[in-house]
């Protein structure tokens, strides 16, 4: 009888790998988690942030190791992602136990049923091979695992028609209270005919799972100082407590193929370049939407479709910064609370991307003080203007649906990192479908400026990264054009599953982490039954 090192090896300790690992360990399976980066306690990240310059760069307070570079803001990071296309695709990506959700803002939307049928309904992009109903129970499980606070009353399709999408149970926690800022914005948007709805969010509105409720520390990004906001380290450590073995500073670089199309082992390198081989019955690669295709390409696995690394998507976006006439006082409470969802769905998706507008409400002092100092404002006038402007700063962060295009892709660069492994090379550009939506969004911006009687600070930001990596290991019904099936199982290897938002074939406009977690829990359940 074959002896394995583990029942399941999970590559990556971010939220998607960790919820799968925790689920499997809880089911009594022997689990090993490999994490490329180190363990770092929360307090150390908070101190790192407080003592850092460049505080608006959310990657800054996180570790950057020669064997595990993050995506930017560090000596190894800054030359890590090799962009060769017209757009610098540089999403926030962290390499430490817990992964990149250390610095997300925890939006926890579900896709709506139409998001799963983009091709059928609107003639563009791709359909999912599964439907909303297939995922609904797993959405609920994911919301309970992460701890999501949300409204059971909103029409999340943005049409104001009553609770939608259908839920089997209420949200685990009631919505977080809205701030004065959010209430005033909602009133203004609603009066103008827009549908502003509450953002379901993996931040506690009450004590949950041993973590405290949000205390409004105004720092969801780059780190919640008190752990009221969920981040992947929660389940990495829960998995460990449930019996999983978590090996940090272990950089997986090869999946070894055996007979019958099965994966038999994963090889990882330690910081000193020493190599270790581990065997298991099943493997889950949960290494982020860029590192996952990189590992598959390095290993020459799962790619009979030639789609590994292709169809790369983000919710590439733009933003509007303005000063409202009335004082709204952003900075009280969480940094995101809701959004304008009117353009999330509808026939317009035949012609242009769906659109989401989300106001951000962080403490704005640095954002307003820097330009005042550049203008030379000093003395009592500086203090007066900081107070005036900080009370009125509105940032509208806009995201667009992006379609999967095979030429947008992650490949292996000829350049190598400290371990001699290839760096990711990226080509990314947006298309006419996307650009048509930018025009529509900018018309909305004009209305928003009028709505708040505002002074524009910046309404032409250029295209921005949104850190929502999708498509790079695409899911589909046909093995010839897809990497995984509807269960996140690779078509080429029956015991290799991918737990990454990279499997998402139709991006919609909502933050994909919750969907990734639902898919991972669903895949873990399948794996548990097969072992």
């Amino acid at each position, binding site marked *: 009888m074959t002896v394995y090192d583990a029942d399941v090896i999970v590559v990556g300790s971010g939220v998607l790998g960790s919820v799968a690992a925790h689920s499997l360990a809880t089911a009594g399976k022997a689990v090993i988690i490999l994490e490329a980066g180190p363990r770092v306690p929360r307090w150390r990240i908070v101190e790192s942030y407080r003592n850092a*310059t*460049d505080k608006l760069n959310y990657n800054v307070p996180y570790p950057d190791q020669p064997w595990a570079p993050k995506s930017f803001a560090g000596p190894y990071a800054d030359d890590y992602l090799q962009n060769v296309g017209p757009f610098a695709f540089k999403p926030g990506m962290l390499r430490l136990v817990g992964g990149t959700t250390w610095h997300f803002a925890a939006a926890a939307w579900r896709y709506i049923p139409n998001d799963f049928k983009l091709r059928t309904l609107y003639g563009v992009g791709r359909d999912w091979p599964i439907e909303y109903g297939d995922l609904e129970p797993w959405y609920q499980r994911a919301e309970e695992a992460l701890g999501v606070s949300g409204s059971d009353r909103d029409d999340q399709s943005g049409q104001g028609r009553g609770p939608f999408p259908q839920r089997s149970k209420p949200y685990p926690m009631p919505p977080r*209270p809205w701030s004065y800022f959010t209430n005033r914005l909602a009133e203004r948007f609603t009066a103008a005919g827009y549908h502003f709805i509450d953002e379901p969010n993996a931040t506690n509105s009450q004590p949950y799972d041993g973590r405290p409720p949000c205390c409004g520390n105004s720092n969801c990004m780059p780190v919640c*100082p008190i752990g009221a906001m969920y981040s992947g380290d929660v389940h990495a450590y829960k998995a460990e407590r449930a019996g999983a073995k978590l090996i940090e500073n272990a950089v997986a670089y090869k999946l070894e193929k055996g007979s019958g199309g099965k994966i038999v082992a994963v090889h990882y390198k330690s910081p000193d370049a020493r190599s270790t081989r581990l065997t298991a019955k099943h493997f889950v690669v949960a290494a982020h939407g860029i590192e996952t295709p990189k590992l598959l390409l390095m290993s020459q696995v799962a790619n009979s479709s030639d789609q590994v690394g292709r169809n790369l998507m983000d919710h590439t976006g733009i933003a509007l910064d303005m000063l409202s006439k009335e004082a709204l006082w952003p900075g009280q409470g969480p940094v995101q609370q809701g959004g304008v969802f009117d353009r999330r769905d509808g026939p317009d998706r035949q012609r242009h991307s769906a659109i989401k507008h989300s106001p951000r409400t962080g403490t704005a002092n640095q954002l307003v003080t820097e330009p005042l100092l550049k203008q030379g404002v000093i003395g009592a006038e500086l203090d007066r203007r900081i107070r005036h402007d900080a009370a009125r700063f509105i940032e509208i962060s806009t995201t667009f649906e992006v379609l999967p295009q095979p030429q947008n892709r992650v490949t292996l660069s000829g350049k190598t990192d400290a371990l001699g492994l290839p760096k990711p090379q990226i080509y990314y550009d947006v298309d006419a479908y996307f650009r048509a939506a930018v025009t529509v969004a900018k018309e909305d911006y004009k209305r928003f400026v009028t709505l708040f009687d505002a002074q524009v600070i910046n309404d032409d930001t250029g295209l921005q990264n949104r850190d929502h990596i999708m498509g790079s290991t695409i899911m589909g019904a046909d093995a010839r054009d897809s990497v995984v099936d509807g269960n996140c199982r690779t078509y080429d290897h029956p015991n290799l599953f991918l737990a990454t938002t990279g499997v998402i074939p139709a991006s919609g406009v909502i933050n994909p982490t919750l969907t990734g977690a639902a898919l991972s829990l669903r895949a873990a359940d399948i794996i548990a039954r097969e072992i």
Partner: protein
Amino acid sequence: MSDRSIVDAEESMLCTHHSRRRFLALSAAAASAAGLVTAAPGIVRAVAPASQVDPAFVQLARFLTGRNDLDARIIARAYEALVTTDPSFAARSTTLARAIEDARLADVNALAISPLYANPSDRAVAIAIVSAFYLGQVGEASKARFIAFEKALMFEPTADMVPIPTYSRGGPGYWGKVTQVPND
């Protein structure tokens, strides 16, 4: 590391009006306050020894920020960062301090509307010093040098309304109870 003050500058006089004599007297007091920095070894690394913090700079920083209670450690750190970042800083700040004296400016608000503030070099030095204390850093983005965070002056004008990021000022859900806000 917290920015909690270890030095309480001894004088409490307001900075609303300065005679030339008071400007000079404050410089002497500042020198002794800065001297206390070295009495707390190990708390702040890489801070210039007090003997290297020009007393005239301490006074100039107080004048430009309109605050007499600047933390001596932060003054020392700002000075060290400014002179390191710009080799001509010491000479230019001395020039600015003298010019302020000569112009008999009452306070920073008088400077803001004076012909002196139109002089590009004096203006740039003044803004560099003000920026160091307000933003809590010298220089921009990743090349900047860290000075302070919790005590960065940019947070003072809104201290009654919003938290300094990472710090809490209300408790769970406090923001949901705010129904009126000042509109100044």
